[in-house]
């Protein structure tokens, strides 16, 4: 079920995410000390173009990557195929991208006023 195109997309997005996830884990290890609060998070991210790009590109990459990943699993393990599989993959993408975009917006520019 993976042809060259999907395979390339999955690897490409993985490569994009790798440094981002390493960065994210590092931040978490740093930030998690003494517990997290909304203010703490927002203080760090609010209004920052850098964090927007950081989380933004992650969201784009992960929605593609996750959609392809779940596509493969649902085909191989749950026998989904044809149109249903196509629909499912796009739905996963849409869900991840939609929720992800909203979250990035929330922690960066929401409330800042553009």
């Amino acid at each position, binding site marked *: 079920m993976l042809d060259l195109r999907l395979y390339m997309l999955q*690897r490409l997005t993985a490569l994009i995410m*790798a440094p981002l996830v390493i960065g994210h884990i590092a931040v978490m290890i740093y930030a998690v*000390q003494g517990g*997290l609060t909304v203010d703490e998070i927002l203080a760090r991210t609010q209004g920052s173009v850098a964090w927007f790009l950081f989380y933004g590109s992650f969201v784009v990459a992960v929605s593609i990557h996750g959609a392809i990943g779940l596509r493969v699993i649902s085909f191989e393990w749950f026998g989904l195929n044809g149109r249903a599989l196509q629909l499912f993959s796009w739905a996963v993408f849409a869900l*991840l991208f939609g929720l992800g975009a909203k*979250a990035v917006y929330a922690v960066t520019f929401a409330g800042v006023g553009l």
Partner: protein
Amino acid sequence: MIRPHRTHPLWFAFLLHRLSGLGLALFLPIHFYMLSLAISAPARLDGFLRFTDLTIVKLAEYGLVFLLAAHLFGGLRLMALEFLPWSPHQKTMAALAVAFAFLVSTLFFLKAI
């Protein structure tokens, strides 16, 4: 599901990669949803973040970070296998990926508690 022909370390590495990817894919929407509460209902997010102080939840987070790290290192291992010259130490590499994942997630856990 663990049938005899599967009982070799690299099959378990495959399973771990798949389950961690699956786990992440299931968790991420929740994670995103929580974060978007930051503006619409900051109190609820804060409430949630306080909820995460519970040890049991800490442990769950530990697991999640482990999954993320395991998937990350496992994914890097797979891409190295595919794109770098072949290494005869496949099992060692898989073990190292898991070891790193433990290291990172444990570090997170220790900082968190």
